[in-house]
């Protein structure tokens, strides 16, 4: 499925999450992000890209009030989040951390998936039922009784995702969902993300620009703690000045597309785009040549 053609969802709709962050300073004085405005609309997949230390994780952790801006505000679903209603942000915005080993705290998978529900005061039987349903949603029901320690990286990631989905959030945030996964497991996790996007909005960060191009409706480019540009994958990944500013190299499809002269017209960003275009082109040329011969 290629989602990149879908345009950014209407600004008329109220955003699910709206962050106005004046700056975030870490305890040791490092400024994680500067003046950043970021919002998530219903039904969209947003990818954050940028170099190491650009501030992606810092921004993401603001979205569910894990981090709080030095000044600025976070509005979730129309409600401003203050110290008192952080739990609203935590419930509406699920967070899957980069290191799945820190995410899984309970001794078994089912306990872990139910962990958030239990904290939310859901009675045990109900929590169990909903945890099972969440595991099913990511096709990981068979892992229910397993011990997290013995899971593979990809399985851990799926369980982390289920733990977040169990809480029925309206936005799911994933920090580097593919890190350390082999191609097959990456595909699996990517497929699950595509699957859940039917139900929730997704915000993710990634170093794999090809993946960002395949999955995102909107790409935000970060550099030095700022969002330096954003747009559809097509807009962003053909914008050389922007990518250079963020020290990024265009994804492979774009490089190939450009090298064969498709950048001025069709601007492919996904593999499917590129293949279709190449097929078309050779066909056109072949047709021409055939016609001419006849």
């Amino acid at each position: 499925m290629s989602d990149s053609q879908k345009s950014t969802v209407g600004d008329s709709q109220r955003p699910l999450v709206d962050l106005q962050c004046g700056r975030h300073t870490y305890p040791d004085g490092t400024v994680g992000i500067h003046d950043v405005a970021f919002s998530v609309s219903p039904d969209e997949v947003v990818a954050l890209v940028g170099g190491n230390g650009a501030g992606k994780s810092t921004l993401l952790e603001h979205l569910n009030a894990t981090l709080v801006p030095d000044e600025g505000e976070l509005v979730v679903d129309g409600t401003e989040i203050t110290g008192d209603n952080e739990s609203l942000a935590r419930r509406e915005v699920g967070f899957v951390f980069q290191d799945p080993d820190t995410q899984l705290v309970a001794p078994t998978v089912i306990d872990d998936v139910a962990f958030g529900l239990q904290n939310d005061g859901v009675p045990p039987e109900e929590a169990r039922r909903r945890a099972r349903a969440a595991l099913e949603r990511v096709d990981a029901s068979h892992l229910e009784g397993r011990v997290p320690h013995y899971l593979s990286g990809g399985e851990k990631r799926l369980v982390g995702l289920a733990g977040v989905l169990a809480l029925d959030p309206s936005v799911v945030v994933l920090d580097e969902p593919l890190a350390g996964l082999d191609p097959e497991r990456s595909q699996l996790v990517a497929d699950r993300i595509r699957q859940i996007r039917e139900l929730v909005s997704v915000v993710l960060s990634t170093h794999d620009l090809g993946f960002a191009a395949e999955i995102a409706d909107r790409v935000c480019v970060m550099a030095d703690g700022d969002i330096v540009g954003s747009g559809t994958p097509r807009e962003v990944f053909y914008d050389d000045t922007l990518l250079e500013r963020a020290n990024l190299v265009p994804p492979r499809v774009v490089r190939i597309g450009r090298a064969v002269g498709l950048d001025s017209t069709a601007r492919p960003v996904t593999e499917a785009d590129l293949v279709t275009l190449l097929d078309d082109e050779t066909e056109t040329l072949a047709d021409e040549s055939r016609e001419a011969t006849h």
Partner: protein
Amino acid sequence: MTTLSNHVPDPRLVTAVAEHGDGPLHRVNPWTKVGTVGALVLAVTVFDRLVLLAGLYVAVLVVYGSAGLPYRRLLGWYTLPLLFVVSVAGPLAFLEPGTPVWGAVSTPLGELSVTWAGLVLFAELGCRSLTVVTFALAASMTTRYTHVAYVLGRLLPRPIDQIALLTYRFTFVVLETLEDLVTAALARGANLSEFWANRRLYARILGTTMLSAIERSERLVKSMEARGYDGDITLYGDVPRPPALELAVVVGSYVLVVGYAAVAVYEVGL
């Protein structure tokens, strides 16, 4: 791995045996094992005769073996517990009043010799310690991860249960960090077999282990709070009550131990 000790049971090995094995002891209810540990502790504390203690020890050894667990490893793992016995009972073997086993050695401190009473004491303490050590290991190597977690969660008061559950979960992760550090140092030709010459390297390895543990705990806080942690890791896993037969055996063993103590040791009149 040469530097991680083979005198200390590797928790990864222990849990792997527990997870994948399927011996008779694997099928015994975890609560029964907990109860038995208690009975054994009581027994080795109140039993006062070497024969009894030795008999108990042999019985436990048989249980260990019949559970399909490796005797050979046990020898390595005995090193430290035996050392504790030696460090307490060693001097006593000389000092204990009684008949010398062989001729006295004269030392600046006076005449020293191992006495029969001292020797018996030594053997008794050895049996006492190893009986429980062996059974604790057998229990650990035959109780599944989830059951251990459940038992910990049940036995300990809040917040100690929470701490213990996280410890159980993360011991393996920290252990891997430590092992990676040691491996990387060795791969670059470090010589870890000399402590003083390498004390700074040791300090850095241990320091980095601690540091990565602490930084992990900082990330853990975030991930737990992101899911609204309120001081409760709840466990759904369930350990059923022990079957009647096992219950009877455990209760029976307590009765035996207490009965023996009352009659033979404390001479309670009937």
